[in-house]
């Protein structure tokens, strides 16, 4: 398998966005790929009071070793889709961590100490013809940066989830993933502060 996670490495990811922006699915795709790749995984979603339009946050931990608490105290990576989530969760990123921003919905000012990648995911998704795939654009960007799994492994998961019923959506999701990947590959130096 095309894994690039060295031994004794743990990746703690916090995903946050509006309910409805597909953060749950984004995390689940990474979690499933990690599981198939033989990694230990915990994925702790927010639940209950989250509604379309509110902020929803997800804690995803991938490791070669046993994972104890699934709650992240300090994140290695923060993937954020909207302004309120950014304000609320930016403090959880460790110094020098990876910050992946959906700049279609987040104003790029006053960033913390981080490796920052700016992805206009909502705009890219809209241009592809379906705003709902903005999460998959972000996923593509994340994969291009951290290279934890091959994009094909993610596409296999996606195909399995969509199945026959929503099979017609596979093509646009694949496009979205590729757009995210290519966007990062075309940037040579991230904006680091």
């Amino acid at each position, binding site marked *: 398998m095309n894994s690039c996670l060295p031994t004794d490495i743990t990746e703690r990811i916090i995903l946050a966005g509006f309910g409805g922006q597909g953060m749950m699915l984004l995390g689940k795709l990474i979690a499933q790929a990690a599981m198939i790749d033989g990694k230990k*995984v*915990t994925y*702790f*979603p927010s639940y*209950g009071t989250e509604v379309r339009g509110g902020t929803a946050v997800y804690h995803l931990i991938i490791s070669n070793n046993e994972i*104890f608490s699934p709650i992240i*105290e300090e994140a290695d990576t923060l993937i954020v889709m909207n302004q309120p989530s950014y304000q609320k969760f930016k403090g959880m990123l460790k110094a020098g961590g990876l910050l992946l921003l959906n700049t279609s919905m987040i104003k790029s000012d006053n960033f913390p100490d981080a490796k920052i990648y700016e992805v206009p995911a909502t705009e890219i998704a809209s241009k592809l013809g379906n705003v709902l795939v903005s999460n998959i654009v972000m996923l593509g960007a994340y994969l291009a940066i951290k290279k934890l799994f091959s994009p094909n492994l993610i596409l296999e998961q996606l195909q399995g989830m969509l199945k026959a019923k929503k099979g017609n959506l596979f093509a646009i999701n694949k496009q979205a993933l590729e757009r995210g990947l290519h966007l990062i590959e075309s940037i040579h130096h991230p904006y680091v502060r």
Partner: protein
Amino acid sequence: MKQLMTGNEAAAEAAIVAGCRYYYGYPITPQNELINYMSMRMPQIGGSFIQAESEIAAINMVYGSAAAGARAMTSSSSPGISLKQEGISYLAGSELPCVIVNIQRGGPGLGDISASQADYFQAVKGGGHGDYHTIVLAPSSVQEMADLVYDAFDLADKYRNPVMILGDAQIGQLMEPMEFHKRPKKNLPQKTWSLTGAEGRKRNIVKSFYPVKGQLEEFNAHLQRKYKAIEEHEVRYETVNTHKADIVLVAYGTSARVCADVVRKSRQLEFKVGLIRPITLWPFPKEIIRKISEKVQCILTVEMSAGQMVEDVRLAVEGKCPVHFYGRTGGGVPTSTQVIKKIVEVVPDNLANTLLQLAEVR
């Protein structure tokens, strides 16, 4: 094959694997994935799913199915489990096997929907009226949730006793890779006491009512003999690094995962931290706690409550070493940093400095 499942879904599927074909529930966060999963799966396998009109109705439906000899389950979260207590007392009094899942949330009252362990007293000390016990199992991972739910049905049948799975919102909502190790149960043991229609045999009676003087005391003596047997044979626990430990943590479920992380961090130091994780909360693993308490400087109990299990730990220790407590309430989940700070607070001063390094370990 491994699959990514929430604790709630794993509990539901494990019940089906164990041969449960009757599920009755009423929605409440954070256990809704369980009832949702059952509503999807039970019709697929020819089982019965009923979304009852209330939690009270659901537990009494369980009574009916259990009396008829079937494997039956209900689930809820704290406020809903409070409503079920009358039914649970009747199930215990009628010696009916069944499984009740409590995915605890913050209390008292309607509380909140965050993880909590504040229903410990209710689960292990009765909850309903009368001298009874439910067997209480506390999973600390999604895999263990599935394994314990499967075993719960066997334990319930073996002792004709209700079994409670005491989880919490974190275990219920958490997704982890898990697999079903055991084969689906096909041939369940015959229950000769069950109500299946008395044609051609002597009638069976299932009841918890003994109005003739002396009969109820006799029945209670029988129950107590049964509970003693359970205490002798069914205690389950896990120990981590307790050999030569200076301080031992006692924690179950979600709290135990946090404490296991503290144990891992302490491995690099000379000061050794161990962990006793009760898996059965009743019967409580008092023997091992007493044994270990004779060799350590002190014990620290960690719970997501204001201090409930710590009372049983103290009873087990019988004053052989100091027993300290750290707890979070109202939906708070302890972090390893907080537990370490508490350890530093309770150990002798000369060790505190060494321990402060613990907080630096990632």
